[in-house]
């Protein structure tokens, strides 16, 4: 199970436990560095980020005259934390209607994350509606509608095959008319290297932008936490098509570490807002950099 659920006390212990166990030699040797490198790579940080971190660690070790592997723990943890931003407040207040657009590759967890997010916002007293913008995948509309029933949030939908831009447009008008103050727009999963589908996404965004000034106020890219280095390309390509404001990383209840977010965040300059920790409505939590870093070294 994910480390997020078990609270800080245990995470700290497990972080230091694991790394303490691992870096147990008497002095820093090549083996120590190899071990650190292996950990980072296996957490999906990717070669480049891994090398950057190790480079930094090495210079810190030199400058601070660190001799014991023990001392590397603190520096490693700090250097990883320095690469991560905490989540921002979502930009969804101070206006009649805020629109959140949710995008990502097939099966990354968009629809489920939308339901979880809507549930969270509803509980915070917001008046939320969902737009069934995935008109392509079989039963995608049904899926969102079922979630809507489950969490008691209305879903504005059209028929399968309808133009997703038109769905978004209609949903915005319906949301305005019925006085909802947050509309979350689901979109069909699409591979970022599919030119036409990325164009389609850009079009949906521009429809939203025309219908509500300044919208979409949040565009959240959903990344599957089990993804490897391809996440960076996903980030780049989606960012070319639409302006991304934040990330959601799902499936971190798995044994995957999600280390690819380091490079994605660095590249896109957007924070991870939420992480998905399961399939239930409550399994979406604010991203916590400390817990995240500690969990990288947690041995499942």
């Amino acid at each position, binding site marked *: 199970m994910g480390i997020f659920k078990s609270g800080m006390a245990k995470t700290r212990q497990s972080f230091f436990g694991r790394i303490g166990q691992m870096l147990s030699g008497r002095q820093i040797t090549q083996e120590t560095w190899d071990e650190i490198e292996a950990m980072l*790579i296996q957490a999906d940080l990717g070669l480049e980020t891994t090398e950057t971190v190790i480079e930094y660690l090495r210079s810190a070790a030199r400058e601070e005259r660190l001799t014991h592997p023990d001392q590397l723990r603190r520096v490693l943890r700090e250097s990883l934390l320095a690469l991560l931003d905490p989540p921002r407040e979502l930009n969804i207040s101070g206006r009649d209607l805020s629109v959140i657009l949710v995008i990502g590759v097939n099966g990354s967890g968009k629809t489920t994350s939308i339901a979880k997010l809507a549930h969270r916002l509803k509980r915070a007293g917001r008046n939320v509606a969902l737009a069934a913008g995935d008109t392509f995948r079989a039963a995608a509309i049904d899926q969102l509608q079922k979630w809507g029933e489950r969490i008691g949030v209305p879903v504005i939908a059209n028929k399968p095959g309808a133009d997703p831009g038109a769905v978004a447009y209609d949903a915005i008008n319906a949301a305005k008319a019925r006085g909802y103050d947050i509309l979350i727009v689901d979109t069909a999963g699409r591979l970022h290297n599919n*030119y036409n589908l990325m164009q389609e996404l850009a079009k949906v965004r521009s429809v939203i932008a025309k219908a509500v000034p300044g919208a979409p106020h949040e565009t959240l890219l959903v990344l599957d936490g089990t993804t490897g*280095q391809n996440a960076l390309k996903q980030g780049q390509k989606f960012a070319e098509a639409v302006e991304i404001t934040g990330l959601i990383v799902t499936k971190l209840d*798995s044994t995957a570490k999600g280390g690819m977010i380091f490079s994605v965040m660095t590249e896109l300059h957007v924070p991870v807002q939420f992480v998905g920790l399961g399939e239930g409505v409550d399994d979406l939590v604010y991203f916590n950099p400390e817990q995240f870093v500690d969990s990288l070294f947690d041995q499942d």
Partner: protein
Amino acid sequence: MFESLSQRLQSVFDKLGKGGRVSEQDVSNAMREVRMALLEADVALPIVKDFVSRVREQAIGAEVHKSLRPSQQVIKIVHTALIETLGEPGRLNLSGTKPAVIMMVGLQGSGKTTTCAKLALSLRKEGKQPFLIAADTYRPAAVEQLMTLGKQIGVEVYQEGVSAKPEDIAQRGLEAARKANAAVVIVDTAGRLQIDDNLMNELEQIKARTKPNEILLVADAMTGQEAVNIATGFNKRLSITGLILTKVDGDARGGAALSMRAVTGVPIKYIGTGEKISADALEVFHPERIADRILGMGDVMTLIEKAEQLYEEEEALRLQQKMLENKFTLQDFLDQLKKIRRMGSISQVMGMIPGFSKMQLQGKIDNQEIEGRIRKVEAIISSMTRQERENPRILNASRRKRIAKGSGVEVRDVNDVIKQYQQMQTLMAQLKKGRFPKIPGLTDGGLFG
């Protein structure tokens, strides 16, 4: 962008100077590059280590080939070892009492349901009557999804909604399939994490009740280091019989294929290459293609990326503009065809062209046949005057006869090309709209059919 392995190795050996013997040190340097290339492609670290040490030995022991540069030789060794590790494409084992049962398992969002439908379709193409069972009672509307797909492809779907237990549904579904005299039953199961003991237990139940011929682990080609845990976890509990790699129409390097194959030893049976349900979007696995892709060498992926860049950045814009103004000429058509041929075989290329990737091609693609056809079309257009290419409307009967003669074909063939071109125009106009359901001409014995 990542440098390809060949570029990297080249630079290692460039330092060597001409005619130098390959020393152990050189091999070590080369192996460092191999290691990096594999890691960048998401091959899991333990697998990379094994692989590199195996290849290192081979490289040191290898006889120096006169015709190959050292870098080429190392690439060849690596490439061969990769293909060997990836293994032969596995065939489905559907022998024994009818109906044969295939159980699909995997993580959430890996593409099981879509793959079930594709597999059903391709089995039916082979003349085996498929039957689907909807045993995902967890994800909202998963049952509806399979039902919709079943309807779309005309394959019966057994379902009991979501209140029964998946293992009971599977068992009763199997009964129903027997009665329906189905040849192959495909059981769709809910996505789950391999560490979820209860849900893994449920799969064991389904397995016990349906005695599947095949248990196929469906995995996302974009999977990272986690691939090892996923494959090991599912294999331990279920003794899987094969792997299917999905979303290969993406641009992930696909190292997960190597990781999963290496830790389970089971063959990769198919790769999924599109969202649309077509038998064609489920391809037989070709180890050399995935090997190329993992290494990032002159491979399909590079081609795809090239093709994309080409089309995305200039072509798409330029062509769209032309199409808007209705100025897409036969000359453009010819240029497109030539580009397509330069990029590789047509079936590989089809998926690279925006819009075409969603195309529903029916039946298997015969590369040679299609390439022959393309060459024919090229010949025909080449026999036209510039004026004719720019303005096909002037192509009257006598001009057509001349062109046929010039290119050594029948007038009928010339007519076909002109018709194709007109259909291409319609197609291109549809491309702009993104997804489109049907392509006139292309699926019914047209140029690409």
